[in-house]
């Protein structure tokens, strides 16, 4: 394993210290395990809290700031945070009108956030949970833990965050978060496995000419493997999987994210985005907004995910609303 780190155990605290040093708009409370805006929540503003295992940077800490999250709770690498963190976050950022938990659908995240929500309720903080489950590589059936939450998290946090900033109430903020999740679907392909600091070696072996289809963002193997193929073919089958589930055919406009998993350079992401845009154009779908870059990563995994969100005028205007976070910034 070759990584920039001091010890495998200190990666998270060192990285958090680095975030604190780099982003003076953020307050990083290492003891509580909470990254939050340095500024106190405006009285009456609904607060957004998210979190999950670390190793997905800039998710979630990089999305804390005006117009997006109020706080994020980083767990250990690929490990959901503990309820104490979300409780501390909720207490720190509650503006009196309740807190929305944005939770990616993993057993660990769901259970820990559920416990935190109960603890918060005990302390008189009203919590609504928005569960993100956009990954069509997993069938949503009783045979699985349900679709995973991946790229759509960025869309949910951005759009619900914008509505919260505008002063909407708890129910409305949660509702739009759920609406964005419903309108979004993702699929990811890995060219290499990733290496967690604790494990020290790649999570799976992948021959030099094979790729892993339908991976998540925790280094777990995907649904199957296949031979490496041209970007056009990989994108075509990925988009088939996405479009099959999300009834985008009749969608006039979409927001698209082509997201790098950590080890894939931007030049390749643009190649992928080009294929996505061409394919959607051929279907008569307009890419109204887009993101191309590393937003939801899986440590050093080479690979990419594609997320498509059906967007109406309201979602687009919330998307365009000002945002000022380490990883997403415009209008401010």
């Amino acid at each position, binding site marked *: 394993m070759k990584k920039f780190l001091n010890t495998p155990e200190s990666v998270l605290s060192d990285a958090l210290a680095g975030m604190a040093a780099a982003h003076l708009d953020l307050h990083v409370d290492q003891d509580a395990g909470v990254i939050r805006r340095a500024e106190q929540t405006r009285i009456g503003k609904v607060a957004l809290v998210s979190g999950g*295992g670390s190793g997905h940077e800039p998710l979630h800490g990089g999305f804390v700031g005006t117009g997006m999250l109020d706080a994020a709770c980083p767990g*250990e690498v*690929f490990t959901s945070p503990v309820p104490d963190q979300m409780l501390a976050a909720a207490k720190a950022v509650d503006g009196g009108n309740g807190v929305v938990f944005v939770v990616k659908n993993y057993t*660990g995240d769901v259970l820990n956030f559920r416990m935190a929500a109960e603890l918060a309720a005990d302390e008189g903080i009203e919590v609504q949970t928005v569960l993100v489950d956009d990954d069509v590589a997993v069938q949503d059936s009783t045979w699985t833990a349900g679709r995973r939450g991946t790229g759509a998290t960025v869309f949910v946090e951005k759009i619900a965050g914008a509505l919260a900033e505008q002063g909407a109430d708890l129910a409305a903020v949660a509702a739009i978060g759920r609406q964005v999740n419903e309108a979004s679907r993702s699929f990811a392909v890995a060219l290499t496995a990733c290496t967690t600091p604790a494990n020290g070696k790649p999570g*799976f072996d992948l021959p030099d000419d094979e790729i892993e289809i339908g991976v998540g963002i925790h280094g777990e193997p995907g649904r199957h493997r296949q031979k490496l193929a041209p970007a056009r073919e990989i994108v075509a089958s990925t988009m088939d999987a996405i479009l099959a589930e999300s009834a985008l055919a009749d969608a006039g406009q979409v927001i698209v994210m082509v997201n790098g998993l950590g080890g894939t350079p931007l030049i390749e992401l643009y190649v992928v985005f080009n294929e996505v845009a061409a394919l959607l154009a051929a279907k008569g779908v307009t890419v109204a907004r887009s993101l191309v870059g590393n937003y939801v990563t899986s440590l050093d995994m080479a690979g990419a995910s594609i997320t498509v969100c059906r967007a109406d005028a309201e979602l687009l205007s919330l998307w365009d609303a000002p945002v000022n976070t380490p990883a997403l910034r415009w209008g401010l």
Partner: protein
Amino acid sequence: MDIALTRHWVQAIAEAMDEHKDRLTQLDAAIGDADHGANMHRGFSAAATALETFQPESVGQLLTKVGTTLISSIGGASGPLYGSAFRAAGKALTAPEPDAAQFLVALRAGLAAIQAMGAAVPGDKTIVDAYAPALDAFAEELDSGGDLAHAAARAAKAADDGAHATIPLQARKGRASYLGPRSIGHQDPGATSTALIFEALAKVVTP
């Protein structure tokens, strides 16, 4: 089961998790995200440390404390599951120093908590596949007149068998379920850590 013995149990679990950290992580790498060893090690080290300065009045209080500590230190799926199990076990105990049968009731409350929370049934390739047969064996031994040591020994064996028996199963809960049929052929990490927990119990209660 008295307080000292229960302390030893937690201590023994912590040592086992330390020793088997890498194996658990490797099992999790195959069908999960390669953190189960680190998770269990972090949680039970924290529990052992927490107990150093904790003076409970009952085994139940001690187990509840362990559960709370696990919840606050593990995270992941296993944190809430094991944490709730220990808390439920602790809360189910009324006698300060339970006998074997009372202890079984507590262990059962633990399993119930895991199932209530995670909705897994036997065969889903989870903790439950080691935990449930362990309790059956424990109960059987008590029913046929065995003592705590024998019951724990049989439970440990049954948990270990149960963990092995997860190999041919397809996961239907947790992260491994994402792999569909590709989860077949690998032993479940959570069932394996459960087997270690029962093995530690057998070790400390065997005179």
